[in-house]
């Protein structure tokens, strides 16, 4: 067995390192898009739960509390989540890497070097099309390593993807 060394105090790399946040915010319409999205989901899920509660007497004892809890979660999600996310989400692309920060309760930083990118696309759902937003998808050789940047202005997204595709083609690397 390899013995573990005592915890962090004996750390040789004691220089204090920090993570820089990515440069850009997502578009403001992200809040609207996320709210509508959540609203539709909430209507669907709560509709099913409430119907079940109303129809099935036998299950109500335990279904009712679940419905209430799910309802409360959706309320919080609707009220706070889109804005919180907007305040947190950031993205950045450079000639070397694609880098994003996402999440609201749990934060997540993701970075992929351009030389390992296999494919970059934009994606626009129906709701996004109406609002004029787009999502950038970056695909790598590892399903875990991909990045999606949601809620960009459609023009910005198009431009970024075109730019990134140009760089990926110019960057040597087997993408694996």
């Amino acid at each position: 067995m390899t013995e573990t060394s005592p915890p962090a105090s004996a750390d040789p790399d004691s220089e204090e390192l920090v993570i820089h946040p990515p440069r850009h915010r997502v578009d403001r319409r992200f809040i609207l898009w996320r709210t509508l999205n959540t609203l539709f989901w909430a209507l669907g899920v709560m509709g099913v739960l409430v119907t079940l509660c109303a129809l099935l007497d036998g299950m109500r004892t335990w279904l009712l509390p679940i419905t209430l809890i799910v309802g409360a979660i959706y309320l919080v999600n609707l009220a706070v989540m889109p804005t919180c996310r907007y305040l947190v989400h950031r993205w950045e692309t450079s000639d070397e890497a694609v880098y994003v920060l996402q999440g609201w309760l749990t934060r997540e930083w993701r970075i992929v070097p351009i030389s390992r990118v296999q494919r970059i696309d934009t994606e626009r759902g129906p709701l996004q099309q109406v609002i004029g937003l787009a999502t950038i998808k970056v695909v790598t050789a590892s399903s875990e390593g991909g990045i999606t940047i949601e809620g960009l202005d459609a023009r910005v997204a198009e431009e970024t993807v075109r730019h990134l595709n140009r760089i990926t083609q110019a960057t040597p690397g087997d993408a694996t």
Partner: protein
Amino acid sequence: MTAGNPTPDTTAEPAPGPESHPEIPWERLSARMVWINLVRLVISVVPGVLATAVLDTPTGPAWPLLVASAVGVSATALACLRFLSTRYRVTGERVERTTGLLVRKYRYVPRDRVRSVDSSARLRHRLAGVRVVHIGSGEARSSFKLDALTAATAEELRRELMPDAAGEPEEEAGRETLGPQPGPHEEVIARFRKPWVLYQMFSVWAVLVVTGPAFGLHWLLQPFGVDLLELVGELVDYERRGFWWSLALCLAVAYPLGFIGLALTFVMSHWDFTLVRTTAKGHPVLLTRRGLLSTRTVHRDETRVRGITFREPLLWRWLGLTRTSVITTGLRQGPDEDSAAGVLPRVRMWEAREVAARVLTGEPSPLEAPLRRHPRGALTRRLVWAACGPAVVTGVLFWLGRTDVLPDRAWLVGVGAWPVTLFAAVFSYLALGHALSGSYLVVRRGAVNRSTVALQHRAVIGWTLRQSIPQRLGRRVTVRIPTPAGERHYVLPDASTRQALAFIKGSTPQLAAQFIGEAESGGRRAAPPP
């Protein structure tokens, strides 16, 4: 670069498809397989016929026999269909296969993408002198097998797709064609040792080795009026001893038998095991040969090896045993030992370390590196979860018990889970560790199934850092390491932020410069005001 799209360098050759290269003929599989399947058919049908027609007194339900016969018939039919419909060929650029009678399916692997050519043989293949050839491309979607080719054809195909640098002697007298091939230069890394048999024997699941076939036999004998369950019941004196003592007695008999069964299986599959480094196609190759009756050879392109994994489930960890597999781009990595990535059976840790050091040459073995422990907060977090999880479960079960959905005592399950989860939390914390060693990064994790991973820095294709609210307060972060090799990603849970950032900076300095900086220089890329 983009998978699936025709890239400029492939325009010179015809696009892949069954119609390309009409001048190269398609080959058939070996017809011997059809004969051996017919024999199998007879063997599978005879008991059913005996029971229903000859004895004519099916006292028990006859359907298990009918099912067995039906399975045998359909397996033979499938084998015949496979023989009729499968064609394969090797062109200048690709290995191709078409299957399917009604819907023709076409698969191909570009020859430069062929990562492994294995051959395996079950007893019936051996009797027929044929081999199943597995052509691995690294992707499950395009890999395929040819079931089956004659031994000579299989060997020819293997040599064509993965030619060894120097010519080999044709065939040693009395030896398997596909078996040992004294290549140009072979460095033996590991060789079968007798104690290994002992290490494979002791498994919690050993009992299944006995009970599985026993139940099969039970179903088989039922139509003949023999009730095996009753017989066993009489043997252990079920009436007198009661359920638990009978069960204990059965287990006491079944486990030793199971251990012996496992030992035999291991000897059959791993006898003469050798792991050697040799050359094929001018590439260094890690080659495994093993098997008593059915020889299996596995070629692994060493240029695609990106690291090594030790896997130690709890019981083995206490016994000091580990399973070793290489992390490669290409080979599918699964927990099962048969997957080509496994380079060693279950052996002692020190042995595995020695082999690992010889597989990953060129620097001090990363798996010897002392691991850094993670901050205490990681332990606290695990203990809190371990305490809260069962508490919540207990509460919910108690409430459900009160509302008559579940039995009243159901909440005891939650209480019983407590010590288990608390121990798991401690084990999980003790398993955590990471290190940087030469051109490798090492991460270790896993409460029950501990795995230690040594991965080359060049196989890291990005980083994902996750930080939940408690982690943010405790200044900890979970790092996920995406990679095209092995399991596609490895996780370093709950390192302190400082450890994690130093880890990232140490393994990919260039990429780290994009998003990690020193605190003093903060604001180098400060975000513009919103």
